[in-house]
C-alpha cells in the first residue's frame, strides 16, 4: 500500500507542490533530449545509407571536440579551428570509406559493426597520442556561444534557463532542419535516399556508392562535432564523454534505426522520461542513479510491443 502510494500519488504531489522544479525538469529533459537526438542522428544517417551500425559515433564526438580544442590551442583563431576541424572530419570520412567500408562491401552486418569498433579503438588511442589524455576546456566563449543564464519566476520559485542550453536547442534544430533540407531537396540527398532504398538499383542508375558514403560519414562527422561542442560546454572535453553516445542506442530503438524524425522524437522521449523518472520515482524508490539504465529498459519494453520503432519501416528484422 505504502509502495503504491509512493508510485502513484507522491510523485504527483511533489510535482504539484513545486511547479518550478517540474518546469525545470522538463526543460532539462528537453535539452538532454535534443542532444540525444543529435547523437542518434549521426547513427541514423550512416545506417540509412550503408546499413552500418556505426559504433564509432561516440568516439567521433570526442575526437571532433578534441580536434577543435587542440587546433585552437596551437594559436589558431576559433572559427578557423572550426573549419579546420571540419576538414579533419572530412578526411576521416574519406579514409574510413576508402580503407574500411569499400573493402568490406557486401559483408554481413555484424562484420561491418565490428569494423566500426576497430575504428573506435584506433580513434581513442590515436586521439590520446595526438592530443594527450587530459581533460580540456571547451572554447565556448571563443566560438561566440553564450554563457549566462536567465531566470523565470514561477509561483514562488525560479526556473533557470542557461543560455548555452537555449543555444544548443536552437543549433540542434537548425542542424536537423538543414540536414532534412539537404537530404530532401538536393541531388546528393535524393541519391542518398535511393541508396538507402536499394543499393543495387541505385548502383545500376549510376549513383556512386562511394561518394554517397563519404557524404554521409562527413555529415555524421559534422553532427558529431556539433554534439561534441554542445555537450563539452556542459562539462569538459575528455574521453569519458564517449559513453554518452551509448545513450543514443535506446533512442534509436524507440525511433527506429532508419528514421530521422524518429531519432528526434525518440531523443526527446528519452530525455524527458529519464529526468522525470529519476527525480520523481528513481530517487525515492530506488536510491537514484537510474539514468544509466532507464532509457534501455524503456527501449526494451517498447521493443516487445513495436519492434520496428515509432517510425521505422515495417520490414526490418521482424520475426
Amino acid at each position: 500500500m505504502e509502495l503504491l502510494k509512493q508510485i502513484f500519488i507522491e510523485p504527483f504531489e511533489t510535482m504539484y507542490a513545486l511547479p518550478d522544479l517540474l518546469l525545470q525538469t522538463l526543460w532539462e529533459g528537453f535539452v538532454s533530449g535534443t542532444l540525444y537526438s543529435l547523437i542518434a542522428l549521426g547513427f541514423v544517417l550512416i545506417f540509412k545509407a550503408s546499413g552500418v551500425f556505426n559504433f564509432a559515433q561516440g568516439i567521433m564526438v570526442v575526437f571532433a571536440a578534441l580536434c577543435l580544442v587542440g587546433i585552437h590551442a596551437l594559436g589558431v583563431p576559433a572559427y578557423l579551428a572550426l573549419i579546420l576541424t571540419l576538414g579533419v572530419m572530412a578526411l576521416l570520412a574519406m579514409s574510413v570509406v576508402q580503407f574500411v567500408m569499400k573493402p568490406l562491401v557486401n559483408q554481413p552486418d555484424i562484420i561491418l559493426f565490428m569494423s566500426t569498433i576497430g575504428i573506435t579503438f584506433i580513434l581513442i588511442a590515436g586521439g590520446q597520442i595526438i592530443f594527450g589524455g587530459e581533460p580540456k576546456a571547451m572554447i565556448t566563449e571563443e566560438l561566440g556561444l553564450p554563457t549566462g543564464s536567465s531566470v523565470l519566476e514561477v509561483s514562488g520559485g525560479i526556473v533557470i534557463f542557461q543560455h548555452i542550453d537555449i543555444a544548443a536547442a536552437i543549433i540542434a534544430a537548425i542542424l536537423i532542419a538543414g540536414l532534412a533540407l539537404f537530404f530532401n531537396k538536393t541531388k546528393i540527398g535524393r541519391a542518398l535516399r535511393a541508396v538507402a532504398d536499394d543499393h543495387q538499383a541505385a548502383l545500376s542508375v549510376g549513383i556512386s556508392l562511394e561518394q554517397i558514403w563519404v557524404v554521409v560519414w562527413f555529415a555524421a562527422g559534422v553532427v558529431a562535432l556539433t554534439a561534441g561542442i554542445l555537450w563539452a560546454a556542459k562539462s569538459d572535453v575528455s574521453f569519458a564523454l564517449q559513453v554518452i553516445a551509448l545513450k543514443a542506442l535506446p533512442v534509436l530503438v524507440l525511433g527506429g534505426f532508419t528514421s530521422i524524425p524518429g531519432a528526434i522524437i525518440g531523443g526527446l522521449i528519452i530525455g524527458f522520461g529519464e529526468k522525470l523518472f529519476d527525480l520523481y520515482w528513481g530517487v525515492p524508490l530506488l536510491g537514484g542513479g537510474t539514468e544509466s539504465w532507464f532509457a534501455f529498459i524503456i527501449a526494451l519494453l517498447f521493443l516487445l510491443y513495436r519492434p520496428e520503432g515509432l517510425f521505422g519501416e515495417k520490414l526490418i528484422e521482424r520475426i
Partner: protein
Amino acid sequence: MFYREAGQFKATYEADSAKFPIFQDKLFIWFYLVIGFVAIPLLGNEFFLGAIMIPFLVFTLAAIGLNILTGFTGQISLGSGAFMGVGAYACYKMTLAYPEVNILIFIFASGIFSAIVGVFFGLPSLRIKGFYLVVSTLAAQFFLEWAFQRIPWLYNYNNTGAIDGVSRWLFGIQITGGGADRTAQYIVCLAIVVVMTWFASNIISGRIGRSWMMIRDMDIAAELMGVRPLYAKLSAFAVSSFYCGVAGSMMVFLWLGAAEPESFDYNHSFEILFMVILGGLGSLLGCFLGAAVIWILPILIREWLPPLIDKITPWVITSSTADLVSDIIIGIMIVVFLIMEPHGLARLWAIIKQKLRVWPFPY
C-alpha cells in the same frame, strides 16, 4: 602430405562421427593437452601463468559461451560481461554462506544462476533480432551493472562495494584468495575449460545444437520443420550464460582475487565479442584462437615494445605510449582481419590444414 587421411579407414559409424576422426588431429590434441597440463605448469613463471594463461582460459570460456549464442544460434549479445558478473556474485554469496563446501561445486553452480538471468534477458529474442537484440542485451548489461552497485546484499555490505576472493582450499592446496598457488589455479582453470569445451562440443553436435544452427541459418524454415524457436533460443541463452557465469566466477576466484562492479562493464562484453568474431563464429577452436589474439597480443606489445624501441631506435617510449600503440594495432588488426578473413582465425586454420594436406603439390 602432413594431414593425409589416406589409409585411415572407418569401420563403424561411431568411428566416423568421432570428435577427431583423423589420427593427426588426435595427436595434436594430446600434444596440446600435455603441453597445457605438464609443460606450462613446470616451465611458466607467475607472470606467464597469472597474467597470460589464466586470463586467456577465462576469456576462452566466456568466448565459448558467447559463441554458442552468437556463432551457433545467430543471436548477437552484448551482455556477456554482466552475465559473468552474475556468476561471480552468485559464487561469492554461496561460498560465504557455506564455507565448508568445495569451491569447485560453487563455481559450477554459479553458472546456473547466470543461466536463469540469461534466460530472462533472452526473452526479447523471441520477438526481435539483429541490432535491436544488441540494444536489448545492452539493457541487460547496464541494468545488471547498476544492480551490482546498488544491492548491498550482493557484496555482503562491504564498505568498498567490491567482492573479494575468499581463501578456499582444494586437496590441501590453496586455490583462491591471496596466498593461492598460481600453478594450482592454472591447472584448475585448464581442467574446467577442457571439460566444458568437450561438453560444449557434444551439445553442439547433438540434437539441441543442431536445432540452434537451424534457427541461425533460417528461423522460419526451422520452425516449419518442427524446431520450436522458444526452446531453441532460450536454451541457447541458458547454456551461453551458464558458460559466461562460470567464466565470471573463475575470473574473480581464480584470477583477480577481488572485483568491483566495473570489472564486469560493457567493455568486457565487447572484448568477448571481438574474440568470438576474430576467432571465428561457430567454431570452438576459434574461441581459443580469438582469446589468444585479443588477450595475449596486447600484453606482448606492452611488454616487448618499449625495450625493443629502446634498443633499435634512438627514441624511448613509455609504458603508456606502448599501451596506446597496442590499442591502435589491435584496432587496425580487427579491421584488416575482417577484410581479409571475415570467417575468423578458425577458417585460416582450416586453410592451413588443407595446404598441409596437399603440400608439396598445389592441388
